[in-house]
């Protein structure tokens, strides 16, 4: 047996290969996908336990070792790392690989202004790139057209997770333009750019609050734009504004239809967090599907060792085996529900609905809220 084959059969090679097979994984029978995910999580847990002194201590304190992870029910005992640990001065303890192997640091900065920094080694970047592009292809199907980015560029805010993830889409488009510069957006320029792209299918991409702001301008000036039959509005970054007010998704969909000519089935929201390689992207029915290389678990906030029933709100935990840099077993500060499989839905895997940040969270937003805070503090 070659080393490569052995790595696939018993090592981390299985996880690396799965990252490049997002669409295939969605086509598996649900029980086969669940078994594959469990196997990947098991191998990942052993890898981090064996190579990460800090995590091994955490696991031993929880009286849980790799030999005890044998059934799906055991996953509840898997030690989780709270996302707040990524902000700590001692976050170096989270690393399973030496810092010299870290290729990339990605940030998210919420209302507290304290950045959460997620570090990724080459294998973790490889996995994230493959699976995120796999998810984009699976749910957005974009391979051409023009992207109006209602957000700053990665040049202006390098390493910000939200912008980095959206910018990856740009490579699939024929052309794109970032419309926020120096923390200001000029909506007249955005309208002119959309009108100028008359030989491309036009897409609008950005955090909900900026698209909402753009639509407010269209309404105020009674400017109706009819985008194209394949146009999509792609959002990432949360629906709560810096003021604390929520943007209504129902109203947002209606306004996109009325002012931009885009049907709700082509409005696709993305859930992501910098600390994990997983994303959840909406299908044409507005249901968010989780990257099939990972598993989520929705926990009772009053008793984090218990899951809540399907459809009940709880705190999101993630088992992400594709993270080779730090243990990808996270306890987030997000409240979500696990959603049932809709009749006729061809995809295996899990579905979730994002509800809000946990009331106990020190942050009520991430990159988008921080960006809105900065933009609103700039003189007009």
């Amino acid at each position, binding site marked *: 047996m070659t080393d490569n084959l052995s790595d696939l059969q018993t090592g981390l090679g299985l996880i690396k290969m799965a990252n490049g097979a997002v669409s295939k994984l969605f086509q598996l029978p649900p029980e086969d996908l669940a078994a594959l995910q469990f196997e990947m999580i098991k191998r990942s847990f052993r890898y981090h336990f064996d190579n990460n002194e800090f995590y091994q201590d955490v696991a031993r304190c929880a009286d849980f070792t790799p030999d005890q992870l044998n059934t799906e029910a055991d996953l509840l005992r898997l030690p989780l790392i709270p996302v707040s640990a990524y902000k700590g001065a001692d976050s170096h303890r989270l690393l399973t690989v030496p*810092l010299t192997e*870290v290729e990339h640091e990605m*940030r998210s900065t919420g209302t507290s*202004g304290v950045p959460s920094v997620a570090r990724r080694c080459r294998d973790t970047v490889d996995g994230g790139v493959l699976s995120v592009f796999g998810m984009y292809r699976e749910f957005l199907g974009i391979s051409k057209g023009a992207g109006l980015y209602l957000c700053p560029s990665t040049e202006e805010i390098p390493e910000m997770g939200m912008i980095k993830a959206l910018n990856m889409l740009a490579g699939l488009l024929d052309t794109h333009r970032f419309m926020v510069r120096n923390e200001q957006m000029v909506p007249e320029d955005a309208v002119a750019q959309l009108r100028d792209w008359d030989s491309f299918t036009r897409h609008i991409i950005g955090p909900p609050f900026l698209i909402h702001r753009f639509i407010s301008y269209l309404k105020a000036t009674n400017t109706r734009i009819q985008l194209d039959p394949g146009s999509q509005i792609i959002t990432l970054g949360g629906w709560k504004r810096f003021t604390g007010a929520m943007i209504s998704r129902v109203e947002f969909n209606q306004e996109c239809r009325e002012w931009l000519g885009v049907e709700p089935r082509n409005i696709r929201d993305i859930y992501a967090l910098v600390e994990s390689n997983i994303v959840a992207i909406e299908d044409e029915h507005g249901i968010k599907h989780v990257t099939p290389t990972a598993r989520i678990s929705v926990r009772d906030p009053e008793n984090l060792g218990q899951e809540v029933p399907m459809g009940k709100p709880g705190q999101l935990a993630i088992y992400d085996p594709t993270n080779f840099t730090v243990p990808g077993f996270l306890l987030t500060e997000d409240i979500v529900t696990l959603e049932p499989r809709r009749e006729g839905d061809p995809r295996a895997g899990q579905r979730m609905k994002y509800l809000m940040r946990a009331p106990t969270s020190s942050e009520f937003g991430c990159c988008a809220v921080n960006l809105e805070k900065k933009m609103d503090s700039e003189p007009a």
Partner: protein
Amino acid sequence: MFSDLIVDNFTSPTHAGEIDAPVLVLENKDPVCGDQIRIGLAVENGQITSARFRAWGCATSMATANILCKWLEGRGVQDCAEASAEEISALLGQLSPEQRHCQHIAQNLVRQLAAQEAWP
């Protein structure tokens, strides 16, 4: 991406923590990436007797905070205040373009010493 100097100071910080009732507090935040360093100083007779940091941000930022504390400790406040931007940058060794914001944070922190009108 990370030099040995940055790796050592990030993974084995010797000066992390707080000083009780610091005489001076130096604080700087990069407005673009959000990295933040706060250094508390104990000063006696114009000499920095102790320096401790709290830092939030990338590995290089945290290492910068530790390097700066080591450099400050045992030095005269006046001497530190007179250090040039080039001297401060040199403390961090060779950095990649993505890490160079840490030079500015370090320079801004030391510049705050020069702005002090008096110290014990």
